[in-house]
């Protein structure tokens, strides 16, 4: 591992893994408890439309994906409020349209040469320094947001109607949350790719929820698990010469099923002692 860290791209990859784990743990927790996993998946996939559009217009794909995914997250947010009944259908359609437009834009781009696979499955080994700065700023914004509005976020996630009655602007929080998710999705795409975003956003909080007694602790444990999965996946992919994004997700998946197995065993033991 030490010799690997002599390489600059490896150091950047580790930094990216750490920085992204922080947003994954914090925002992922809010995604899981607010049950907006599907919207988050929709944002991640539709972001590809922004990448394609940016390539076509010749601007930075990161900027394109950021603006595009923010816009689309707001549209999805409005849809989820306006038509509660069919919101999932609407989000599914936006999901597909975003990806389709991304593919068409890249095709229309003269001298197309960008590696589509790197957006689909991530390329943590080629993260540029500018993206690390982006991640650092995002971590800072997310931390501030949660630090100041922790009690409102807990309350809103637990019982939105009660918060509304108490006069908390839950809609504003909802849209700010969607906006932050869009920003982080763009960063997570860098690490594991847009197809695998959901796994990194949801598996650590899912495991953490079972062993914690508050949302704050859940966020903390989810961050640690995310760091563990990302770094272990990175190391494995280096040793075994496998795709880094997919290896990270496989490690997280193993963690997911391990936690289910531990639960099942613990449940059995409890039954045995009850008897």
């Amino acid at each position, binding site marked *: 591992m030490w010799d690997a860290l002599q390489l600059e791209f490896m150091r950047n990859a580790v930094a990216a893994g750490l920085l992204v784990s922080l947003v994954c743990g914090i925002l992922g927790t809010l995604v899981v408890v607010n049950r907006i996993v599907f919207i988050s998946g929709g944002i991640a996939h539709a972001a590809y439309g922004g990448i394609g559009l940016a390539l076509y217009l010749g601007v930075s794909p990161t900027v394109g994906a950021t603006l595009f995914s923010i816009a689309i997250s707001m549209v999805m947010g409005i849809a989820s409020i306006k038509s509660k009944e069919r919101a999932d259908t609407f989000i599914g359609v936006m999901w597909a349209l975003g990806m389709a437009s991304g593919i068409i834009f890249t095709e229309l781009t003269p001298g197309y040469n960008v590696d589509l696979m790197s957006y689909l499955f991530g390329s943590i080994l080629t993260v540029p320094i500018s993206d690390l700065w982006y991640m650092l700023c995002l971590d800072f914004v997310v931390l501030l947001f949660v630090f100041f509005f922790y009690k409102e976020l*807990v309350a809103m996630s637990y019982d939105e109607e009660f918060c509304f009655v*108490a006069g908390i602007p839950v809609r504003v929080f909802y849209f700010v949350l969607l906006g932050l998710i869009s920003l982080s999705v763009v960063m997570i795409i860098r690490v594991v790719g847009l197809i695998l975003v959901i796994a990194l956003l949801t598996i650590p909080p899912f495991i953490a929820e079972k062993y914690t*007694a508050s949302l704050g602790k859940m966020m903390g444990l989810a961050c640690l698990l995310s760091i563990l999965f990302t770094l272990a996946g990175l190391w494995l992919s280096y040793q075994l010469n496998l795709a880094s994004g997919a290896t990270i997700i496989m490690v997280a998946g193993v963690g997911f099923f391990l936690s289910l197995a531990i639960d099942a065993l613990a449940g059995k033991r409890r039954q045995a002692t009850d008897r």
Partner: protein
Amino acid sequence: MAQAVSHNPEPSASSPYAIEVEGVSFSYERTEVLKDVSFRLKQGEFLGIIGPNGGGKTTLVKLMLGLLRPDRGKIRILGEEPNTASRRVGYVPQSMDLSRAFPISVMDVALMGRLSRARMGKRYSRADEDKARQVLQKVGMWDHRHRLMGKLSGGQKQRVFIARALATDPEILFLDEPTASVDPEFQVNLYDILQELNKEVTIVVITHDIGVVSAYMKSIACVNKHFIFHEGSQITQEMIDMAYQCPVDLIAHGMPHRVLPIHKEE
């Protein structure tokens, strides 16, 4: 400390009525749920709302809380718009709606009652914690304050939600089927707590339990798209006809002491 500000059941200068509803209609999509509902409820009342499932009881409460807006008609709560009045109102929702897996302690739920727009972005204060302790003691849940909500029984959860509503220092307390998921012993217990509270607070409770209605409540209304209001706790034949499910409840688990009205102290 500011003790339960202006909890006076006497008509206040601003409005003698806790609730004024005038010609309110409401539809979901194209289905009309409430039609031309009008009534006025004095402060200090204890109103029971009965009616069949899907009859519009919860919708009516959500309209009064400002969670929904009426298609037609006007609602005044304590003389204000429902949205502005909502900070003076406590709400106990149906508890089964909330996630069991969510990691939150009893104390944290009680503290939610201290949320306000004015103090957004700040931590809960010492006074907030004192208030939460006070209300948890009132419902007998203080000893359980560190436990997780997901690990509580239906009755215990309901007590915590009542504590949370009380922590808001409400002038009106709305409860949506507070005994739906609760053991029978706690039902009686709960209504004793509510009756005690009613000395200071106007109470509106949705219930399926007609026995409880006649024993504890001062007035009663039946909602089934239309609205029949009756000051005094007798259930009229008209209500029974409208709320066809109520008599079923009466026979199904009416215990004698709950079917017969209890004589008031005065």
